[in-house]
């Protein structure tokens, strides 16, 4: 997808009217994710019940791509198990790095699959993966994520 089209059709909506950009109640895991070269800075919160993500929210600031990406991610992972979420993060990061290209895997990302073309914008890769990377970190190392 062409960059401007990507903004217009996908990114802007999530950036300007995010659904999950808010604190959630009694989060179980909270972690800050930062992208120093861009200044993107988010704090991601997850609520987890019986190994399933029941709510997700984020606060902070950053470029439209990082914000949209984390908003879409939250959409995706609510209702998924921790393991599914970790797997999804792996798929997303693989896609953005251009390492995963088969349609089937990518379809699992649903709307977030639209960010595939960021793979061709090396300078924006870090923006796109910030939220996903943070989520992966906190699920894999819950001891680092203050509750």
């Amino acid at each position, binding site marked *: 997808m062409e960059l401007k089209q990507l903004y217009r059709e996908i990114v*802007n*909506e999530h950036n300007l009217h995010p659904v999950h950009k808010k604190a959630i109640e009694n989060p179980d895991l909270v972690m800050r994710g930062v992208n120093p*070269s*861009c200044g993107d800075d988010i704090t991601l919160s997850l609520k987890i019940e019986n190994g399933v993500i029941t709510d997700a929210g984020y606060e902070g600031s950053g*470029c*439209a791509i990082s914000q949209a990406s984390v908003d879409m991610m939250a959409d995706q992972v609510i209702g998924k198990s921790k393991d599914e979420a970790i797997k999804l993060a792996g798929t997303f990061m693989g896609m953005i790095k251009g390492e995963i290209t088969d349609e089937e895997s990518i379809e699992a990302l649903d709307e977030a699959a639209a960010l595939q073309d960021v793979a061709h914008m090396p300078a924006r890769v870090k923006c796109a993966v910030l939220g996903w990377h943070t989520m992966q970190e906190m699920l894999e190392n819950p001891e680092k994520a203050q509750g």
Partner: protein
Amino acid sequence: MKTLAEYRKDFDILSAGDYIYFDNAATSQRPRQVLEAVTDFYKNANANPMRGLYDWSMEATRLYEEARSLVADFIGGVSGEEIIFTRNTTESLNLVAYSYGLENVGEGDEIVITVMEHHSNMLPWQMVAREKGAKLIYLEPDEEGVISKSEYESKITDRTKIVAIGHVSNVMGITNPVKEITAYAHSKRAVVVVDGAQSAPHMAVDVKDIGCDFFAFSGHKMMAPMGIGVLYGRKELLLNMKPFLTGGEMIEYVTREDATYAELPHKFEAGTVNAAGAVGLAEAIRYIREVGFEAIEAQELKLTTLLMEGLAKLPYIKVYGSKDPAKHCGIVTFTMEGVHPHDMASVLNDDKVCIRAGHHCAQPLMQFIGAGSTSRASVYFYNTEDEVKEFLDKLSKVREVMGYGA
């Protein structure tokens, strides 16, 4: 005499493409003449300079030393002994920090810099302050980017050992009163280091007139190749400084225990020198002289004026620094309401416009002006009014792309 439009044709990368290159403060483009001078060096007289007794090496030495003389002349007619070739401004400033700073700053002493400094003129001084238990004091500019007399007179004191200040800010574009600050600092017996990375390419510099003790700049921002930079240092100080890098070419005698060092400036140039880079820098200086600083400054002012007038018409744009285009040295830093600079740069790149977005290696300044990140357009004399107009046109469409309606 060639017109600016004709000079522009010397830059293949500009003629070839349909790109608008407005990131000149990061690095400039190089004219064919500079690239050819470097290639010619390798084709005609390539050898390791300084020690060879054969023609190629003697010719390489001659060209290298000729470049040094040209540089000495370019910054106001100093002596060649006072010109040290380095890799870039960053290395030049580190050399001063290590060889002068660490030896002359002690516990409780103060080093004064400004909050506008590029990281390259900040981190080395943080290092010296940390290692020596000295205090780093920051001068702060007013809204227009100006360091006032009262600001520097209140912070430069008898405790100040070094004042390190950018000649031109790479974010605000403002020219600091380095001559006045030097005079005041000298009255307090502080040594003055001027970071000339953003001034040397754009204005006639006279280090004797400024009076500073050290002056650093990079070739790559003034049409020379990457990998060659300059440190000017006052002879009296250089003579008393320890070498920084040690190794081949900077010695007289070496025994197993110790070494005596070569004369200035070789004492500070360890290892095989970048003679081809120096030759490229010499050609860049010749090129600048041919164009002339008068023409360079006039064109940059014209472009900056047009640019700032255009930006002023866009209500959602905020420009940093002075309102006067003459005080921007071709550098205009701005933000667009609701649009992150990185998104702006990406959208503009899609339209083949190259600007910089981010912290511009000046994070403390970003914190000071309260912007996490900004966009910067910076022009050089080879840019055109048409490019500015096209840039403004493209810029005015960014908000629409970012979802803010038309």
